[in-house]
């Protein structure tokens, strides 16, 4: 397979396969969770589930003081790389073109040097996070193969994207093809791994808030 054929495959059939697995997997998993529901609570309701649930989705975004003190690195690094991912994925002009082509919506892009800087910071942060995970005894003990797989699938598109943009090491078509392929691997793994938190975080926070709301306590 020549490099252009490789690029053609990842832009064509490869991307289609990945998209189908991603969309089907995410929707089926979410529906399963929602339809299964929770056990009926026989106690009398002391407050609203809905308002407390919705409020908690937002309030949990800010860590409480105690948690922040205990795991400062995890929270700060976590924020940095999530914001970095958001900027590199959603505010890079060629990526916006992809979204426009698939979902029909587009929005303004950031200048490429800024996105580039975000990518570098994100890559460094993810490396620091891995080192932290491996050096901390408790974290290392709690880590599963999936955790390392997810870390790998997150950093690979960033590194390959950076290499493709700066044309490091290989020819441009090969670099671009490898970059797209790593994103496809991420999409395929997404519904079956903890990547799902990108969607389930909303449900989880709502349930947490709703439970407290029902009991009439602060969440």
């Amino acid at each position, binding site marked *: 397979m020549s490099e*252009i054929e490789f690029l053609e495959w990842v832009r064509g059939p490869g991307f289609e396969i990945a998209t189908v697995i991603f969309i089907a997997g995410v929707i089926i998993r979410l529906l399963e969770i929602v339809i299964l529901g929770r056990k009926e609570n026989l106690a009398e309701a002391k407050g609203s589930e809905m308002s407390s649930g919705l409020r908690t989705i937002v309030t949990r975004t800010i860590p409480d003081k105690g948690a922040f003190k205990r795991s400062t690195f995890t929270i700060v690094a976590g924020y940095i790389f999530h914001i970095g991912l958001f900027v590199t994925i959603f505010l890079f002009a060629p990526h916006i073109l992809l979204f426009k082509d698939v979902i*029909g919506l587009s929005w303004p892009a950031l200048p490429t040097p800024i996105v580039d800087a975000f990518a570098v910071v994100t890559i460094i942060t993810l490396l620091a996070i891995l080192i932290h995970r491996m050096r901390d005894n408790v974290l290392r003990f709690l880590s599963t193969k999936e955790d390392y797989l997810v870390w790998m699938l997150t950093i690979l598109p960033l590194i390959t994207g950076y290499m493709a943009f700066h044309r490091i090491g290989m020819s441009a078509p090969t670099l671009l093809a490898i970059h797209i392929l790593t994103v496809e691997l991420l999409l395929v793994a997404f519904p079956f791994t903890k990547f799902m938190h990108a969607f389930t975080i909303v449900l989880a926070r709502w349930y947490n808030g709703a439970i407290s709301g029902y009991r009439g306590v602060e969440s």
Partner: protein
Amino acid sequence: MTDRSSDKEKTLGDALRSQGVSRRSFLKFCAATASMMAISPAMIPKIAEALEKARKPSVIWLSFQECTGCTESLTRAHATTIENLIFDSISLDYHHTLQAAAGHAAEEAREVAMKENHGEYLLVVDGSIPMGDPGYSTIAGISNYDMLMEAAEGAAAIISVGTCATYGGLPMAKPNPTGAVSVGDLIKDKPIINVPGCPPIPVVITGVLTHFLTFGAIPELDHIGRPMVFYGQSIHDRCYRRPFYDKGLFAETFDDEGAQKGWCLYKLGCKGPTTYNACATTKWNNGTSFPIEAGHPCIGCSEPRFWDGGGFYKALSMPTQDIGKTAVYTAAGAVAAGVAIGGLNKLTKSGAAAAHDKTTIDDLEKE
């Protein structure tokens, strides 16, 4: 016959002088060639000397499944350029579009040239070779495959000109009805210089010829056989519109404000980032401009399989297929499947609840 042999005795220097090319413009050409090919300026006298003394090399040009665009590109200069003269000064012994002879006389010229210069002539090929059925393209009743194999046998080197000869080009595009293949697919035991492009830039071929005449060897090639000096950098890397790409300023349509201001054509499908060629630096029509300068995105014509690359006007970051439709169908299917699975789970749950037996004190006391 005698005329032709005496013509062949002439060196390139003689030929250029007889056409009224001054020493000054000849050296200018040598210097330009050296700088273009990134050769040290110290080599300019050597290039001049080598070209001066070079006997007109015999060149056999075979045209297979092609559109003659390559020949048009390489021979049609608007003004007489020195590159053109160099090109005129090779002994083009066979080229069925350009030669005056026809029929048996033409084929005889090819056979004589092959015999007289066996092991020394340059073979230039444009067009792909049909392997599906030899009858798709024949010359004087000889299949393209047979003619290529016969001519390649005695060639010093082969120059594949145009994307059809180098990588299959248009004839090899899906569904490849003629079973077209490239020269490199068939010949493995000769040095092959690939000069792709649809068509390739004229100055590239004179550059390759100059290199061959000066050093007696083929220039450094990249991993798909292209001379590094011309195909070493991508269009994108040398594009004068690159600053707009970096700033994120793009033309969205062919007639919007961005297009008028000369912003980057990435969104209009420009293949510059994945295309290696010299268009952005040497340009076309005596250095006038190149497609991007004229406001059209690069279509990637010097890359293999560029016809099948998902459409000339689709940006590189876009999928080549209509994913939107697939996504909608998938989502619809997944909702149905998710509801069905959820329903099954509920059934299992209620079934389990119904089958659940309560243990009473009596049950426990039985033991």
